[in-house]
């Protein structure tokens, strides 16, 4: 369900841009999906392939799904570490004063049109 909500937002943006650019059809879409964005890749792809059938420009659109690693930064020791492995606690100095730098977003990189 969660994946579907994001898919709908992505598709609406692409359909709008496709119309503005007066394209025939969108053949490929590249997305960067963060490891800690809460998106399950398999569900996302299923939802995408279901939802494009109802679009005007994206019926045959291929999805290129790039996973972006979650990286956190520690405010105490000023080092970074992989988030999914260590969570909120810094593995270098065990501080909890950390924040996520990358990996929480879903970014539309580009799309190919005919």
């Amino acid at each position, binding site marked *: 369900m969660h994946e579907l909500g994001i898919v709908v937002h992505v598709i*609406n943006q692409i359909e709008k841009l496709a119309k503005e650019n007066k394209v025939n059809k969108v053949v490929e879409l590249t997305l960067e999906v963060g490891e800690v964005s809460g998106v399950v890749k398999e569900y996302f792809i299923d939802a995408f392939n279901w939802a494009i059938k109802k679009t005007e420009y994206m019926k045959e659109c291929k999805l290129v799904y790039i996973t972006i690693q979650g990286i956190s930064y520690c405010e105490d020791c000023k080092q970074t570490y992989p988030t999914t492995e260590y969570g*909120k606690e810094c593995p270098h100095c065990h501080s909890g004063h950390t924040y996520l730098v990358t990996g929480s977003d*879903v970014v539309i*990189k580009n*799309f190919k049109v005919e």
Partner: protein
Amino acid sequence: MSDIKTITVNRSAYADNDLEADALREYLKERGTFLVNLMSSPGAGKTTTLTALINSLKDIYRIGVMEADIDSDVDAISIAKNTGVKSIQIHTSGMCHLDAGMTKSGLDGIDISDLNLVFLENVGNLVCPAEFDTGASLDIMILSVPEGDDKPLKYPLIFQKCDLVIINKIDTIGYFNFDFKKCEETIKMRNKNATIIPISAKTGQGIDQVKQYFIKTITNWKEK
């Protein structure tokens, strides 16, 4: 052979919603309607808390409620019956959250011209509602004691996003392994600006504190 061209976007999937939410916040500010987004997991006591809170605030503000659910209208009926304020039900048609567009449609549906405080009771869920900005000026979540004190560790985003965390069903704390202090610490670790208020919507404990929080927050918002 046909020509294939690449169009670069480089924009977050949430960007269009964020823009819509900002526009909605500005529109509501101009009209003087304060919108509150209330989130929690199913069963944390959103509707009971809202009923108690509305009854304590309805002499001060002209209140409306939008109930968002995947299906049914039991919440809207319950709120209308127990508080007497205007309420509508929004169906999300299977979606697990509300976005700014749906919120705007709900506001148009309830007609906010005579309202200065509107509550949006979001779909019961700790994940998706946190990701989509609704355009509200205040984000609140309710965590209830039986859910456990580890929820801020498991669902960090919603705790990061909320201005106020209400800990409900505090009257049952003796029956559960809920460490209030530990819970408070983990919430503060994720969001040092969060206000935390323990309440019992059933007994009325803490409702006055939430009421005072609202009066202060809305006064500050008006002056901004």
